[in-house]
């Protein structure tokens, strides 16, 4: 009995290894770039981190399926490299010999992608699930595009400026016309100018009779 149990126990890891195959039908490759993401604060990838990964994945499966039977042991990891990259599969908690199909795993990961990333302080780019495209964040669209707001502000200032300048110019022109009229009247009263020569200087001068322009005698031909 004991021997059978021991045999079964020793077969389990071997069986587990057989289930997790690189390029397997239901297997996913994971690639982490910890040093790229965290630089000096990068942590070492060891067994405990691996444990966290399997736990997080189990959590993702639980969340997606609603079954609380998934455990750390359901997630099997193989082919680890110093890159840090590895393959993993998820076994069915009810039947450890079968694997959860690829689509289900993908959906589960997509649903909890943010939580998985945060557990490792990584992002979609630095914690890559090969074959699962990163969820593209749709750009935030404010209700009114920002550029129209800036345009509105600029146009408002410009229109106000134009109107102000036109009105000021109009008022200035009216004022100038009034002062010219006032000045003209005053001038008329003070000095009468004709051709730049004040009429006062012409007083007393009778002018010169220009014989060339006196037509009176030559109007009628002399008989």
């Amino acid at each position, binding site marked *: 009995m004991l021997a059978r149990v021991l045999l079964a126990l020793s077969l389990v890891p071997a069986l587990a290894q057989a289930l997790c195959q690189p390029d397997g039908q239901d297997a996913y490759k994971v690639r982490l770039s910890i040093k790229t993401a965290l630089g000096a604060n990068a942590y070492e990838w060891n067994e405990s981190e691996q444990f966290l990964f399997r736990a997080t994945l189990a959590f993702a499966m639980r969340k997606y399926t609603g079954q609380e039977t998934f455990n750390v042991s359901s997630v099997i990891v193989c082919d680890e490299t110093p890159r840090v990259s590895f393959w993993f599969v998820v076994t069915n908690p009810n039947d450890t010999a079968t694997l959860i199909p690829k689509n289900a795993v993908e959906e589960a990961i997509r649903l909890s992608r943010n939580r998985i990333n945060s557990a490792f302080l990584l992002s979609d780019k630095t914690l890559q699930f090969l074959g699962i495209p990163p969820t593209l964040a*749709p750009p935030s669209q404010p209700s009114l595009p920002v550029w129209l707001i*800036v345009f509105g502000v*600029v146009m408002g200032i410009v229109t106000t400026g134009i109107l102000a300048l036109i009105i000021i110019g109009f008022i200035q022109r009216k004022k100038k016309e009034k002062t010219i009229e006032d000045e003209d009247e005053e001038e008329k009263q003070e000095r009468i100018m004709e051709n730049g020569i004040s009429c006062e200087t012409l007083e007393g001068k009778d002018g010169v009779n220009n014989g060339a322009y006196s037509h009176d005698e030559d109007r009628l031909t002399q008989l």
Partner: protein
Amino acid sequence: MAEEKNTEVSVPELGKTAEERPKWDNKVQYLLTCIGFAVGLGNVWRFPYLCQTYGGGAFLIPYIIALIFEGIPLLHMELAIGQRLRQGSIGVWNSISPFLGGVGIGSLIVSFLVGLFYNTILAWVLWYFFHSFQDPLPWRDCPLNQNKTGYIEECAKSTPVNYFWYRETLNVTPNITDNGDLQWWMVICLASAWGIVYICFIRGIETIGKAVYVTATFPYLVLTIFLIRALTLPGATEGLVYLFTPKVQVLKDPKVWLDAATQIFFSLSLAFGGLIAFSSYNPQKNNCERDAVIVGVINSATSIYASIPIFAILGFKATSNYNDCLDGNILSITNAFNIGDQNVTRENYDSWLKHLNTTHSQEIEDLHLKHCNLQEFLDQSASGTGLAFIVFTEAVIKMPGSQVWAVLFFVMLFSLGLSSMFGNLEGILTPLLDLHVVPKWLPKEAFTGLICLISFLFALIFTMGSGNYWLEIFNNYVGSLPLLIIAFFEIISVVYIYGIGRFSDDIEWMTGRRPNLYWQATWRVISPGMLLVVFLAYIVVQVQQPATYAAWNPNYINFPMTETLDYPGWVFAICILLSSVPCIFIPIVAIYRFIQWIMRRVRQSQNRNPCENHAYEPELQ
């Protein structure tokens, strides 16, 4: 012909209260306006490109020679003749000889046509300015496609910056015959550009003089800020070394000298009539010789000064692209060979590659690693709108605090272009005012508004889908050949028809000093000679170049490369028309006046007795 020569050139008297000629508030306004007119977008995006293409520091030699022997003499001539005759371009040439009125009309037409497309470029700058207040900048990322599974194909194949320019800004059509619709966003940007221009131009030099305190000085402030910032960026020194390393053997190519001469000529904004208009508002006793030298030197110094931050930033961009290229390769190698993260760095990349090539050469080949060469990235130069809206915007997104730099850059471009627009518009306004085509009851504000409105309506062509292609046509055909012809006629008429002796006397009266040998030599022989050579060489080069344009066609096989298409026949006819219409007025007006003169002579020869005046025949009783 002799009668015309002896007629006194009519100079409007000072002190006429009815229509006093407007004048500058002070000398600084006048100088800043002239500098602002000369210093434009070309100083920032054409000169650095030429410098880089034509052997870096070595290009300065033909450039400075062209400035001394062509630029400054022509500039002095325009400022002096405007100041002496106190009229706009049409009035000035009419005064020198009625047969030359066509030169002024040519200037007017060129100013109008150039103003149309120049302000459209400012509308584009405004569009980018409006979009610089977002985080992240809209040209950083590609927009998602309809089902949100990936990026839009056109953007994914080219770059987000290209996509934003060609699709979201211009919405360009694949070829020039496909007009597309008026893009509403471009129309409102164009309206705001013309609105801003109008508010500065509303009362002619009265308002321009005030506006120019800001628009002419602000670019220098921004250039200095950019200079300080750019020099601290990684890769800046590579860019500067690349720009200024002189390659003296380039000087053997005549094309370099041709481009230096044309660049000086177009950079100083000669032959637009704007400089004549500005100097016509000066008091007559003003040292125009010193003004010309100041404006010419500052214009060239600005070009050189602007190229430093531009190239520092381009060097930074090239280094960033090179590093991205390297990083891409490093990631490929790290992933393929499962090497530890960050074990392959930029520094040891070469040794890793060498090692892996010896051991796993087949796999390395399968990776299709990109060939990363810093020189290649530095060679990706651009000029014109490509520099500002594609290359520079890409550099800005890599700089920390991108929004600030983008806003500063586009405001600088806008004020550079705005001060140049003032010159274009004054080149239209002043001659029309001097010709008294404006009815007395129409206030100046309304007339300037009318000019802006008409220009805006015409410029709507450039807001269509094919607008960018039409703008290139206007830029190449209007803003080039007609100016050379007009400038040539200007200097010939001043030197040989007005008379260099008389001109020298005028300058002596205005400045107190007779023009020395340098001016005499350049005005009489060297500058007209250089203009003629440049003009002929320009024609030869243009004729040899096929009439093609670069079209952005997403369905092109080699997309994202631009497709080279020929201009259709009718478009090419329009190009020829644009080049020739401004110039055709020179002979037309000359012939018209000649016919008038002939008819007057015929009428006079029929009068035997000049003293007999039939109007006064006494009536016989």
